[in-house]
């Protein structure tokens, strides 16, 4: 036992070091802008990161959902439509795992925007959520004006979507899951059809949750 003690101490120290190594931070994506300002007579350069702008959509319960309601939340955004025959079933099979991992943690949301608001009315979205086994207020299925959805997809979440009557289902879109932090900055973008990347996102969400709270950008 006495011989073992130093070994245990060494192991503990080594583990502690290793633990520190593991504390990684996630990159911040999107456009950035340096701003110089003068604080107490000193010139400092600050970086302004691209953030998700104001929005207003309606969820599967008919409730109005605005960017304000996500203040202080980490969330994942994606784009889909309920009659999608191609990648959406895979994306939402993978998203269910994310939902089940974080549904009880609070300050976490999933926002799935329909890109076919004409067909995907509120009752259609509610039925879809029910069948998927989604309850409560962790995972919202959002509907809004088509232009608004397409604009926020392309310009803010950097996901390409477009209507194309030539493809099965009538829409082409990318299956990205976009990870947004409490300051509404993009911290990751993952292929929602790839279970490995989705597992990585789950780890990254945990990393984000452990980040100290900064001032929340309104």
């Amino acid at each position, binding site marked *: 036992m006495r011989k073992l003690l130093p070994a245990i101490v060494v192991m503990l120290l080594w583990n502690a070091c290793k633990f520190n190594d593991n504390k990684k931070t996630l990159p911040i994506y999107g456009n950035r802008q340096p701003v110089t300002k003068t604080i107490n007579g000193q010139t400092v350069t600050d970086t302004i990161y691209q953030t998700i702008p104001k929005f207003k959509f309606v969820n599967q319960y008919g409730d109005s959902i605005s960017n304000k309601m996500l203040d202080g939340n980490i969330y994942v955004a994606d784009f889909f439509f309920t009659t999608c025959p191609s990648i959406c079933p*895979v994306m939402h099979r993978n998203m269910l795992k994310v939902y089940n991992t974080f549904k009880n943690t609070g300050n976490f949301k999933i926002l799935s925007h329909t890109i076919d608001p004409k067909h995907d009315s509120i009752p259609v979205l509610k039925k879809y959520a029910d069948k*998927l*086994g989604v309850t409560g207020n962790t995972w919202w299925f959002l509907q809004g004006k088509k232009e608004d959805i397409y604009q926020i997809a392309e310009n803010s979440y950097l996901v390409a979507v477009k209507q194309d009557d030539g493809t099965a289902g009538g829409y082409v879109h990318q299956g990205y899951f976009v990870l947004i932090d409490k300051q509404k900055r993009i911290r990751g973008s993952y292929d929602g059809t790839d279970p490995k990347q989705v597992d990585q996102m789950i780890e990254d969400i945990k990393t984000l949750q452990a980040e100290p709270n900064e001032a929340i950008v309104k």
Partner: protein
Amino acid sequence: MKFNIIIGLGLICLSLIISCQSDDQLEFKRYYSSGSLIYQSKCQNCHGAKGEGLSALIPPLTDSAYLKTNKETLACAVKYGLKGKINISQKVFEGQMPANDLAPVAIAEVLTYITNSFGNKMGTITSEQVNKDLAKCK
């Protein structure tokens, strides 16, 4: 002498049986492995890698009883799509499967794959069988 002839005949029969069987097995293997590739590219997104389906949206392919009783209409379901209420594994599904424009031999291959995976064991569904079934689609 007589004895030798009997043994000889017996051996011939035996070798015939064995070679026939291995022909069947070979056919099965071909259907099954081509079917597995078709499944991955055309069906797996919805029905899942393990045939598990997706919650109450898309039924699993693990209900052997359903597959057996509907064996003759599976080809039609794959080719022309399927919609309306169905009962799978004691759950009601009411979704819509899109049509899949596959050649009869490809339908036979993918059906052989699903009816012999995920806990199912129904043997080969040949393209002759599929052609017969397709002629009866509603």
